């Protein structure tokens, strides 16, 4: 999938994660802020990375503000953001 424009998904509520995608950055980077950074930081990043790979997304800057989301929520917010960014609407 190709991202056509910046997009976002999620909320700042507890147990959720707010994802922002900025395409066309030349390389892929993940900037993560999390209430459980010390204990789940690398896990969160790897979930984000997995979704990017599943959808064949490259050259995107991911900004994520995590409020303790579980993996299924991280995946869902990533996918929603990707689909929104890939849409022409």
């Amino acid at each position, binding site marked *: 999938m190709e991202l056509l424009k910046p997009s976002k998904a999620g*909320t700042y*509520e507890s*147990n*959720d994660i707010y994802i922002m995608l900025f395409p066309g950055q030349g390389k892929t980077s993940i900037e993560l802020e999390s209430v459980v950074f010390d204990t789940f930081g690398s896990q969160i990043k790897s979930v984000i990375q997995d979704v990017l790979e599943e959808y064949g997304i490259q050259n995107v800057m991911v900004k994520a503000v995590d409020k303790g989301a579980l993996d299924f929520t991280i995946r*869902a*917010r990533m*996918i929603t953001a990707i689909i929104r960014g890939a849409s022409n609407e």
Partner: protein
Amino acid sequence: MNRLRRSLLFIPGNSPGMLQNADVFDADSIIIDLEDSVSIDEKDSARCLLKELTNAISYQNVETIVRVNPFETKYYEQDIDAIKSLGIDTILLPKADIQSVKDLDKRLSLVNSRIKIMVLIETALGVEQVFNILNATPRCIGLMLGGEDLCVDLMCERSKSGEELLYARTRVVNAARALKKSVIDTPFTDTSDEEGLINDTIFAKNIGFNGKASINPRQIHTINRIFTPSIQEIKYAKRVIEANEKALKEGKGVFSLDGKMVDLPVIKRAEIIMAIAKNIGLVNMSGDNHGN
């Protein structure tokens, strides 16, 4: 016997915090809502979240129902496409009429889905057509009454005492019972009024509802308690069934218990109570029904 549905808890479909804990409140069914509690901008988020949720988490000992958006909206088709292959039990179809329930059945049949349908009766037309809506497909396992929207359609105020819903309530109960399907009462929406909830729930039970929907986890305990047979009822039902078995062995058609004649309706009622009690794990317990 239908699945036990004493309490059905609505959970906002775009709220991860609520979704991940939806099964801890002891509701018999969870209704993940894609309709009213999800804003128009977030319908896509909620659908996606539901999909990832069901892939990751299986709720324990609870029926998973999803309320989709109504047939006449543009979200309906997207909702059904997104959820028809997920591991959910039931779809709650809002503003149901004969056309919409047939459409949903068709879409699910096309993919050989095992998902059942519960119809939400919340229009005046829906109330008048309720028998035919329920009877439109064997996939339809029951109905829920939606009091708030119905009152809008009836152009009346929704009151706490609920006189305005009396006709709809008794009519939907009758239709559902005639077809041996589940019948669920509308939520009691004032979550701070415990006494009002108790009265409303007792009334629903007394006129034949199987259970009651709720929009707040704090109501579940009360609703369950009211729709759960008491220890006295269970003990009596057990004795009726035992006496019946004995009477059958002895070739007696009619018998008496505690000086009262026991006939078929009493036996049937006892069987229903025992079935509910077994379902909740209350049988063979001498104590009271704590912990639910």
